[in-house]
């Protein structure tokens, strides 16, 4: 049962709804153009349920129809949680055991983004969705730089605070601002730190694709609806793993020990 189709009112009917604007005046031709687009999207048959001229040059369409695509659930690759969810108590304990010091987190919104509510939801004591934020964890030292932090400032703070992890929020996505800023940030950290000393790089925001970490050059991406507990658990798992020398590694653990 790994192949499914969209469901309108009958199993397998494949029904979907689409809306879009075409830069064409409203006419039979532009309705035909809307159908052509629907067909290119795989809808067949498709029905233009609604066509509304918006001024002389644009028309808005609502199209209903059946797509023939099959969704192969088996082929879906998602970033599933690959670390145990810890309570704050467990997290504190794990940090104390592995690091024998507080784990340092530096966070903020980079670029011109001033949407702090998301990063604050993760960092501030108050937290989010009923979970306390990272500041609540005794063994976490949280430095929240707030909004509109420039990348050089962020790198500097991370160095000054000896950050284990850097948490960056990006909410504005118009013209892919979040992607550009994240790539710039990742590059700056790679330049500023030797590989093993580079803090863990984490970005988050409601319009990120969680599967995109590698392409962006960061260690992890958190999307819509992330809770502080998930982030804390992830940090503990990764940072603790780094500091647990029992695991075989191709690199010498020398720098690790000195931190």
């Amino acid at each position, binding site marked *: 049962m790994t192949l499914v189709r969209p469901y309108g009112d009958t199993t397998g009917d494949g029904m979907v709804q689409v809306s879009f604007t075409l830069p064409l005046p409203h006419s039979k031709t532009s309705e035909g153009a809307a159908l052509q687009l629907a067909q290119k999207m795989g809808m067949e048959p498709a029905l233009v*349920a609604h066509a509304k001229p918006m001024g002389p040059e644009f028309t808005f369409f609502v199209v209903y129809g059946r797509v023939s695509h099959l969704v192969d659930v088996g082929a879906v690759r998602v970033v599933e949680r690959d670390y145990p969810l810890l309570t704050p108590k467990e997290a504190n304990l794990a940090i104390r055991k592995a690091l024998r010091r507080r784990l340092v987190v530096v966070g903020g919104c980079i670029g011109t983004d001033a949407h702090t509510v998301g990063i604050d939801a993760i960092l501030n004591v108050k937290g989010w969705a009923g979970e306390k934020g990272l500041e609540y964890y005794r063994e976490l030292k949280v430095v929240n730089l707030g909004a509109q932090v420039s990348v050089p400032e962020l790198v500097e703070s991370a160095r000054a605070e000896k950050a284990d992890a850097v948490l960056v929020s990006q909410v504005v996505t118009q013209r892919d601002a979040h992607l550009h800023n994240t790539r710039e940030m990742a590059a700056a950290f790679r330049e500023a730190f030797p590989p093993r000393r580079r803090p863990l790089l984490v970005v988050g925001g409601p319009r990120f694709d969680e599967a995109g970490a590698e392409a962006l050059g960061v260690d992890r991406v958190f999307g819509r609806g992330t809770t502080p507990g998930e982030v804390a658990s992830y940090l503990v798992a990764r940072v603790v793993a780094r500091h647990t020398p029992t695991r075989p590694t191709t690199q010498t653990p020398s720098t690790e020990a000195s931190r």
Partner: protein
Amino acid sequence: MTTTRQAVPTRPRLPLDRATVRRARSLARKAGRPIVRLAQDHTTVSVERATLRMSGLGGADADGIPWSNRLLDAVRGDVGLEHGVCLPAYDALVRGEAADLAELAQKAAVGSVRFRLPEDRDRTRAASRARKEVGAGLRRIDARRRERERLITRHGDAPSTPWIYLIVATGDIHEDIPQAQAAARAGADVIAVIRSTGQSLLDYVPEGATREGYAGTYATQENFRLMRAALDESSRELGRYVRLTNYASGLCMPEIATLAGLERLDMMLNDSMYGILFRDINPLRTFIDQRFSRQVHARAGIIINTGEDNYLTTADAVDAAHTVTVSQLLNEYFAKEAGLEDWQLGLGHAFEIDPDLPDSFRLELAHALLARELFPDAPLKWMPPTRHMTGDIFRGYLLDAFFNLAGALTGQGILLVGMMTEAVVTPWLSDRDLALQNVRYVLNAAGRLGEDLHPAPDGFIAERARTVLDEAVDLLTAITDREQHPGGLLDAIADGTFGLMRRPADKGRGLDGVVRKAEGYLNPATTLLEEGR
């Protein structure tokens, strides 16, 4: 017999002139009485088949023709129906032609029984056997009613009014069931399984579980049973009794009503004129069938839903507002005459005013409040916009929100949930989910705003309500005026008064199934139903 009543929430009041209201009701009585007399004097093939079904005759032959049709046709062929089907049929049983009605129908179908009209002693015997068996059927219906009451007590009733009424319409009972259960889980208080486009013109009730309806699912006893069982399961799961609705309409109205009683359906669409106007069924046939079906509903504790909303899909909602009021008054009269009580009267009306009209929402409030004020104890059924819905699903979602708001502000009893895809498809699973979200938001956020709404006694809203009521009285006056309408209501229907549809009394489908009762006509169902009250 106690049954749950809907609490009427705080709502705006509209001062109506009591004398005008009284006059409207007495005119409706005057218009309706000849129709009742007509119904008393006639029977129909469906009334007779319903009686057979009440006696327990189910099933169908290899072609899918129900045994009740087979038996009825044989009886009619042999002796006619003027005396009802029971005397000849039970006489045959008494004569030992078969062990029961089922066997008798099978024999009749192959022509191996002949029927006669029993007389004297034979008649008495046949009549008494008929009364016994039909009576047993009625007791099954009574038991179902008690069962409903028990289940409501056990699981609890719908938590508040308006009841949230959702339609399911896949055409396939096995797709309908999970969708209905999903709808119930999402908050529906009432589930309606609408019927396949063709069913109302079939002069028989299909048999068994069905998967091939168009834009609706066939109403069959088995489908009723399956869906009611599924919703009983949901009721248990959800801790509230979820009601089931179907349609007692079309050529088999009395039979469907009977099956609804037997399978514990809770509400039935049952309008006095819908079949005439929108299915071109003969007016006499409809009124006769309707009286019987309402007697059954009364007995079964079923709430009826009338269909005034439909007029506003063919006629303009402002121009024809008063025809809705007239029809509500007629439906009320016919319903009460058939034994229904106020709490069973889901009188219909609808949010169908052209949304581009200035103050359209206030006009809707006026119409909705008028109905509320006229029928304070009836659980009014409030129907969503359909006619002015377009493929713009966003606008559709918006209109539905204001429909929900009007429903809440004016204390409607049953809210048929509007779908944003009204002008596109029969509802999808997601349409229902979104629609319920709309209802929940509106009721929760603004449901109690009615407390703050006080239409001025001489303001726009009150003025409009008064105008509609006056127009309704004028129309009723015209209908009952012998000069203008020698044939009374039947003439008015022929004229296109309702929904702009012209339906003469001698036209339309199913007239050949109407039979004038002879002197010795006997139907224990009617007798028992009328005695019962």
